[in-house]
Structure formats: C-alpha cells, structure tokens
C-alpha cells in the first residue's frame, strides 16, 4: 500500500511537471523561425501560445516577437538570435525571463507587473519598467543599450552589479569586464538596422475596401501595406 501511494505521488508530480501552462503568445514573425519545445519542433502560427522553456531561433533576415501573458512585456528577436523564454507565477504576477544565447533582442517592459530578467552567458539584467536592447555576440560579449528606464546588470563572473540608466550603454566582455558609457550613435544604428531588417522585407498585407461607383456598381480599392 505504501508503495502504491508513493507511485501515485510520483505520478502526480510528474504530471504536474508535464502540465505546462502558456506564458506568452507569439505576436509576430517573419522569415525563418523555429520553436523548440522539449525535444520536438513545434508547428506554429501567429498567435501561438508559448510555454515555459520554449526555445526560439530566428534565421537570416528573420524576426520574431512575443508578448508575455501578463501583457506587460514584449520581446523582439532579430535575425540569427537564439533565446529561451521562461516565466513563473508569483502570486498574481508573473516573473519573467529570457535567456539569450546569441543575437539581438529588444525588450519593452511595463512597470508593476512582475519582474523581468534578461540572461546572457555573462550577465543577468533585471529590469523594472523600461525599454532596452540586448546583443550577445558569438564570443559571449553582451551589450545593453537602455533607451528608457533603468536596468540593473549583475556580472556572473565577478558578481558585480551596475545600474544602466536611460541613454547609457553597458558592455560586458566574455571575461566579465564591464564598460559603462553614454550611448553613441553607432549603438543606436545597430538597433535601427535590426528594426529595418525585421520590418523592411516583411510580406505586404493587403486589404480591400468596398465602394460604390457613380453607377452604383460595387468596386474595391485595394491597399497594400
């Protein structure tokens, strides 16, 4: 009987672990995007619900954006980026994080709806209501460009903590050295380039607006955008 109870408890625990709840939704994507859930590739469409530990990978000239379930945080991944999203409930709030292995990611966060962390190979950046850009290079160098609000970065190698405010850029080398300076135009141009690359070659969408001509015949105006 005790063995049976133990087996049941383990089964319940296993089931609860398998019972993943959605933490975000795929808001937009373009080009090559793969979503890995566990060991399998997920078939997805716009709006797809994303679960804890889903891994997103964008290819060349590709883009993906997702929004967390508490509607407070939108994350945009640009070309050739790899990120794993996570979240856990903390009372009525959602504590969120994104683990960036490589690539460029832009985060937009609203205050007061749970914490948000960006994790790179060298750094953990905690955000409390802000907008900033993160880039992780192949060699592990992480760059944080803050356009609004404040980001607190903790360097994993040295446990050093620094606050990066609006208009500041923090660069952490693979060895854990921190460089904090004002944001330069070159830093911004990277962001702009990434945005343009994401949006520039997006497939045009079309709508047709019905109208009546002078003879009362039904015609359509087609608009591409």
């Amino acid at each position, binding site marked *: 009987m005790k063995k049976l109870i133990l087996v049941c408890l383990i089964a319940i625990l296993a089931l609860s672990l398998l019972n993943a*709840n*959605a*933490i975000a*939704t795929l808001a937009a994507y373009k080009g090559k995007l793969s979503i890995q859930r566990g060991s399998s590739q997920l078939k997805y469409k*716009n*709006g797809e619900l994303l679960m804890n530990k889903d891994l997103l990978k964008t290819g060349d000239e590709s883009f993906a954006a997702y929004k967390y379930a*508490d509607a407070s945080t939108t994350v945009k991944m640009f070309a050739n980026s790899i990120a794993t999203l996570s979240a856990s*409930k903390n009372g009525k709030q959602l504590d969120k994080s994104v683990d960036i292995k490589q690539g460029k990611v832009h985060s937009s966060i609203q205050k007061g709806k749970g914490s948000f962390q960006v994790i790179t190979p060298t750094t953990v950046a905690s955000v409390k209501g802000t907008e900033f850009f993160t880039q992780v290079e192949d060699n592990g160098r992480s760059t944080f460009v803050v356009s609004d609000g404040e980001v607190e970065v903790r360097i994993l190698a040295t446990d050093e903590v620094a606050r990066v405010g609006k208009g500041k850029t923090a660069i952490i080398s693979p060895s854990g050295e921190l460089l904090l300076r004002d944001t330069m135009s070159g830093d911004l141009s990277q962001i702009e380039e990434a945005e343009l690359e994401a949006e520039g070659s997006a497939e045009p969408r079309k*709508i*047709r607006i019905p109208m009546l001509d002078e003879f009362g015949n039904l015609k359509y105006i087609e608009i591409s955008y």
Partner: protein
Amino acid sequence: MKKYLFVLIALISLNAWAAISSMHIPPESFNPKQDLELKLEILQGGESLKRITLQYRQVPDENWLSSPLREEEPGIFFGYIPRGVLSGEAVQYRFEFETDSGANEYLPDSRSLTPYYHLALMGKTGTQSSAFIRLNDEDRISTDDDYLLVVSFLEIADELDLRSLKVFVGGREVTNKAEISGGTLLYRDENPIAGIAKAYITAKQNGRDIHSETWITEILPGTKSRIPLHYSGSINMAANAYSPSDKTLSFGDTHNDFATWSELYGSYGWLQLSSNLYFSSLEESNKQPVNRYNIGLKMPVLEVIAGDYSPTLSDYSLNGRNIRGLHAKLDTKHLRLHWTHGESVRKTLAKEDALGIIGNDSSFKQEAIGAKLSIGEEDGFSLNIIASRHRDLKSSLDPKYYLLDSRFRDGEAEAEDPAAEITQYKLNAVDAAVAAVDLRINVPEQDVLMGVEVAGSLFNKNTLPGAFSEDTLEDYGINLPISPSDIADIFVINQNLEPFGLSASNLAWKVYVRSYMLNNMISVDYQEVGNSFTSLGSFAPLQDARILSVADQFHLGRYFLLSGSYNLTKDNLMGFNEISNRFQAIQAQAILRIPKMPQLKAAFNLDGAQNKKNTELDDFDFKPYKADRKSLNIGMGYNIIQIPYVPTQIDLGYRFGDDYRKEIRDSTAYTMLSENKHNGLNISMINRFKILPLKTYLSYNNGEVKNLMGETSKKNSRIYLKAEYSLFNEILKPYLSISNSSLSGDQDTQNYNTIALGLTAYPIKNMNVNADYILQSYKNKTNSITDYDNSTLRLLLSQRF
C-alpha cells in the same frame, strides 16, 4: 428596429384568421447556460389540434430547427430551446400548429409583419473585470488573415471556474474551439467573414459572474477568394410503445409508433443545400401519406426543391397544401417566377378480393400544377398572376373501380346491357382550376403592406365522360373560340361544369391591409367568396360567404399589451339560400407587467351565431335561432424571489363563462334550447431550489359545468405534481410526476391517475435524450367494466450539429 420589436415586448398570441386561440408570453430574454422553457396555453380550438411544434433558430441563421411540444397538462404545452442553440446573442422562434384538416397555422401568424418571436441574450451578467486583457491588438484585418483572439486572465486564473468560461465571437459561442492554457486563451478563425467582429468572455470568479470588455475587430475583404463551407441541422428519433389492458376502452392512440426526421442545411459560397426527411411507422399505402421528404438547392436567383413542399402562390390558388413533386423559383429584383408540379394527395386505393368484389370506394391520384409570375419589387409595388390546376388522373384507377357497370355487378361478369345508354359512375374524377391576380404594395419603411387578390375558379365535378365534342356544343347552343377537345389536356369542358358558365359565383376576392403605427400592429382583411368558387390547392374559406377580420395589437413598452380581433362571417352571399347565417367571434387579451409587481392577464372570447330568413324568397316555415358562447379568463402571476433558498413562481387563474342556444319566437319571446354555465380555478406553483438542483411544479385545477335547463352539474378537478432533479451540472435530469383527475357530480364518478418517471439527458454536446415511462389508470365507480390501465414508454433523441 421595429422588426425586432418583439425583443422588448412580451406579446400575447393572437390568431385573427385561425380557429385556435392560444396564449403565450415570451420571456424577456434568455440565459445561455440554461434550456429556455416556453409555455403555451391553448384557450380554444384544441380539439382540432394534431401536433404543436416549436421551431427555432439562432440569429442570424435562416434555417429553422424544430422540436415537438409536450402537453404537460390538458391545454398546457411546454417546449424547450436547448442551451446549445442559445450560444448566440439572439434567438428567434415560432409555434407551428398542425390541425386535423391538414392546414398549418403559426404563432405568430405567418402573414404578420413579424412572424416570429425575437429574444435577445440576457446580457453579460455580473461585473466587468479588467483582468481580461487582450494580448493581440489588431483592430483591422482582412479576410486573408486569421482572426485571432488572444486573451490573458492570469491575474484571476486561480479564482476562475474554467468550466464556466465562455468565449463569444460574432454573436456565437466558440469556447470549444478555443485553446485555454494556464491563464491564457487563444481563439483562431482561419476563415473570417468580412464585417465587424465583436468578442467578449464571460466566466465565474469565486462564484460571481464576471465578463470582459467587448473587443471589436474590423474584418475587411481580402484578395484571396475563400469559399466557406457551413452546415447545420438536426437528426431526431421518437418512439412510443403502448400496453393498454384493453385497446377498445383505452383513450387516445394506442398503436406503437416510431418516427425519425432530419433537417440538414449546408452552404458553400453562394450555393445552399437543404434536406428535410420524415419517416414514420404510421405510413400506410392505403392512407394519406405521413412520410415527408424533400431536397432543395438554392442559388442566388434560382431555387429548386424536389419532394414534399407546401407552396404558397396566393391565398386562393395554392396555399399550404402539400405537393410531392418538383418546385422551382426564379427570383430577381423585378421579376419572379414560381412553378410547381406534382401529386397533391394520394388517396385510398380499394383492394379487390379473390371473388372480384370491391370492398371500398376508390379515389384517383391527383395531379397539381401551379405557376406564379410576379412583376415588380417585393419591397414596393408588385403584380402577381397566378394559375393552378388540380386533376384527378383517370389513368391511375382501373375502370372497374369507378364505373357503375352491370358487367361488374354482384362480383360476376354479366353481359353488357344493350339497353343501357347512360354510363353511370360510382366515383367521379374532377378537374379544378383557379386563376388569380394579386396586387401588392409593400412599404417596409412605413411598415405598411396592402393588397388585393381576385380569383376565379372552374370546377368540373366529373371529367370521366370526356370533353364536349363539336356536335355536343352545337346541341347546347354554345359557341367557344376553341374546341374543348383541344384543351382537354388542360381542362375538361363538359356538362359537369359547376356552374355551367362563368358568373360571379365562380369568383372570390379579398383586400387586406397590414400596418404598424403608434405602437399598434393592425391588420384588416375583407373577402367575398362565391358559392361555386372551388380551390383544391388551398384551405379556402367558406363558400358563398363574406368574411371580415380585424385584428390589433397594442403595446406600451414591455409593460402593457392589449390585443384583440373581430371576425364576422355571413354566408348566403349570392342570396340563393332560404336561410342566411351570421357568425362572429371576438377575442381580446391583455397583460400588465410592471417590474417587481404581480403580472396580470386576462383573455375574453365571444363566439356568436345567428340565422336569418331570406325575405326575397317565397315564404316558408323558418325557425330563427341564436347561439352564443363567451368566456373570460383572468389570471395573476408573480415570481417571488424573496423566498430564501426557494424562489417561487405562482400563477393563479379563474375562468368563467356561459353558452346558450335559443329559438326566437318574436322580438321578446324565445325558447331556450340549451343553456350552460362553466367556471374553473387553476393554481400553479414552480419552485426552483437554490441549495439543491431541484425544481418542483405543482398545479391544481377545478371546474364545473352547469346545465341550467337540466339542472345538472358536472364537476372536475385535477392535481399535478412534478419534481425534477439535476445531476452532474444538468447533464442528467430525472423527474417524477403524479397526476390525478376526477370527475363527479351529475355524471359517472371517474378517476384518471397517471404516474410518470422520466429522464432528460445531455450526454454529449448538442444532443438531448428524453425517456419517459408513464402508467395510467382509469376507474369508473359507476361502471367498472370500463376500467382500464395503460403503460407507455416514450423515447425522444435529438442531435444538432
């Protein structure tokens, strides 16, 4: 908006043109989580009722689904619109009365400006919660895109009863198509329809009703052509098995029966397909057909139906009678053509035994053809020309069945009597044709519809001798521009025409007006029908009569309703009869419904008849009579929600009236032939328990009929109890009911006892199953040899999709 006026009002039934008087008070709205119960009370004319069907549809569907009403108590019928259909924002319904004569009547009347009841959703119940947050923010998309609704309710996910969560998009519940995970919901429509899509969510949070805001998305036409496929319908089955102790004594039908019927509707782009099938074990080749089937195809301007169909060309030609054949409608804005051809009635065919003796008289198969040409717009002025013809097919019957011939006399072949010059018939084949012209003016913006129809008929009571020859025409001194033999395929002209020659007696005409003004729904009809006017394709009113019908329905919001009708029929229009009869019927109903106050209702019926001598004819022995019947029903209803744990709805009613028939000797003296008074009381109570999923129903009726001349009094009383319990969140609802009716007074003391045990189940989505086991017993204390028992097993299964 006026078209949906019934949303705001509880309308009292009124059938100005019908023989059945009924009362139905629609609910103010409906709750999509519960079956919608509808109560219908038959006040008068219930003897001619065969069946009552509830037809319903979810707005904006155009196709009706149907389910039969159940008579819980004498004259009281209950029907249910299943909650699966109530997932939209509005529902429409109507009642169909099938009478013994074959005519179908509708409530509301099918000819009124709003021929159905329209109910809106109770509205989002509870409070609006800001915890529902839409995560995707497209306000405008095209039909090329998927319609997405991604909503987060993370903040209240732990407090929400997920089973209560419902998603509504475009007026329909789409919860079963939504993906819900944790505190997030995703609904996707890959084939959105252009227009405005409104979406919202309802749920229970800690037992309290909450709802989201309404999210609006504009869906514009895209560039890709998509052909959406839609289908809907229902499949139903009903069976009754009876076990009477003595079939000769048992009341009502005791033949086991089984029926299955289906309604299927589908659309693919502009193409629509429909099919209605009805099969019953009561079908017998020697009787009127019970089975029905048809399949229809509808395109933008053309509709074709094969099978059973009741075309409506005009009131006097083809109207409401079933024709099994082919029907086609060509419908354009300014021109419409309707054509129908088939078999109208299949009558009994006699069977010959081994000795050649014919048991029963026979009848012919009847062919029906009808056509209608409409010129003009339906929402405007239109001219309609209609023609129809019914013909008994001589070829459908062996001559020995209709010829009264000596060769077939006494079942043995005899030599033909050479002295017999006149061929006699024991059965006649008829031809009947109607031609009509109908002018209509319809102004929907002004809520006015008026028209006039003039029709003439030709009737040949025996076409078996064939058409006149040229010689015969000369003998009769008749000159016709065409030869009767040339048109014999269309209509047979011979000496059996009734009347012989065209006159006013062949004609019928009517004028009508329907209008809605100043909260009044008014309709006025006047018609005159000649004594020889014959229409086999419609349920034409009395021949040789003039009929006036006036009806009005007045309302003040949803608080006060008053409706009334007056019908006057006078026969002997042509003045050939010695006696003229005059019939009048007055109906009035009123309801007063003030919020939080008792509801008051009243219904008055008066039927009168009188005869009159035709003074233009020679004097004869005439006995004038007068007959009258009137009754008044008054009632009060109140929903006592203040009773803790058991909200109770109480209805009280009292009815009284009298009828008499007297022979009038002069202006002051008369001889009473019969005189009766009746009165009755009814009390009913419905309790809906809150702490238990239990509903009980109790009713008590008593009545008395006094014969004032015979000084006798007959009394009756009835008590009815029903308890219904819900299990597994209303998936199973067993019930038990008991009733006892007793008759006493100046009649045999009799008792009818009924015990019924039943179950209503909703095993899967959109399916409901009803099973009942009923035990009945009849005891006559004065004449016990008439006692009998009966048990009935009933099963009804319905699946909608």
